[in-house]
């Protein structure tokens, strides 16, 4: 048997492979340099953009010189996948998979395929997939639950609720401590009692860092924990407010307002401010 593959084609594919690998290596070196000198703004490294760009550029130039035609920047694609995996998933797990990652992948995919297939891929398949993933999660949750039940029956250990353990703050005690203070909190601006003296505006604030929990198997638990943290922080802010008001001799806070905010770079911490007018009644 004798396949008549022209010699030029074999050497062409060899050349193409060579230029792709040289482009990839150049891209990797660029990315390494960007990481090494830490050329970043707001924690976002410019290497993510420039490394695939350099790889694609070098590859195209080489291909044009050796083969005489462009071969479609495959090394840029390789570099893109590498940088995304390295920087978003391995290096920086707090950031996780985000809209940019999925968006860039979607852009690459949709450029390569016709519109009808795109619609099928992005609307139909993802829709069905997300629906079934929801069911799948429910099934595994039930399975997990029954497995735990069986385990505790066999070993005879009392079943502990991991959800309740993780919460240090008791929800049922909310507001009780606040209302047992000497300071009376009134959220309206009028009060039936006679006001003897106005003491001015008082503030109690609290700041605490936010945990990012984008990659998590148990969203509900994390949400519950966050909510509890917020409740606890709010009580603390109110305590701070009453403390500063009591120093001035106030026994009532009128027109109380509580504000929840995110502050800091990229909104990475919560701020709760409780403020109101301190009066003596």
């Amino acid at each position: 048997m004798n396949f008549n593959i022209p010699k030029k084609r074999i050497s062409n594919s060899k050349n193409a492979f060579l230029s792709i690998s040289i482009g990839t290596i150049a891209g990797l070196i660029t990315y390494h340099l960007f990481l090494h000198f830490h050329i970043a703004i707001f924690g976002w490294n410019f290497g993510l953009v420039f490394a695939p760009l350099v790889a694609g550029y070098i590859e195209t130039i080489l291909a044009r010189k050796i083969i005489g035609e462009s071969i479609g920047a495959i090394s840029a694609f390789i570099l893109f996948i590498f940088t995304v995996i390295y920087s978003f998933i391995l290096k920086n797990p707090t950031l996780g998979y985000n809209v940019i990652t999925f968006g860039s992948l979607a852009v690459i995919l949709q450029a390569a395929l016709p519109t009808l297939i795109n619609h099928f891929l992005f609307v139909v398949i993802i829709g069905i997939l997300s629906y079934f993933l929801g069911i799948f999660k429910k099934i595994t949750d039930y399975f997990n639950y029954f497995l735990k039940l069986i385990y505790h029956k066999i070993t005879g250990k009392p079943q502990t609720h991991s959800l309740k353990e993780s919460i240090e703050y008791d929800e049922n005690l909310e507001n009780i401590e606040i209302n047992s203070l000497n300071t009376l909190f009134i959220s309206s601006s009028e009060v039936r009692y006679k006001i003897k003296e106005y003491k001015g505006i008082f503030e109690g604030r609290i700041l605490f860092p936010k945990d990012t929990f984008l990659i998590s198997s148990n969203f509900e638990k994390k949400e519950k924990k966050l909510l509890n943290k917020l409740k606890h922080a709010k009580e603390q802010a109110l305590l701070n407010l009453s403390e500063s008001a009591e120093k001035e001799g106030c026994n009532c806070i009128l027109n109380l307002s509580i504000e929840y905010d995110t502050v800091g770079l990229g909104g990475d911490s919560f701020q709760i401010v409780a403020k109101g007018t301190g009066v003596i009644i």
Partner: protein
Amino acid sequence: MILSSTNTLDNKEIINYHGLVTGESLIGSNVYKDLFSGVRDVVGGRTSRYEVEIQKARELTFDSMKKKAEELNANAIIGLKISYNNLGGTMGNTILVTAYGTAVTYK
């Protein structure tokens, strides 16, 4: 139980102030939810998934407030304030619904 955002209750006399009652609830980020509302955002139409969630969170908030007010033997909440806060996240979709007011007894 009267819930009012006004400062006083007209034609009713407030006998006793019991103090502050608060309620919070959280709508967290959820990949499945986001995917669907993301598709809706592109295709058009109301993102009803979030509407339903916010309504649910609002009711939860009010329920917890009412429960606390009942424990204080109050029969009304005045000066009620409710706010919706976006707590951000990378995708910007953790929504906190908070409400607070003064528990009072009226006659």
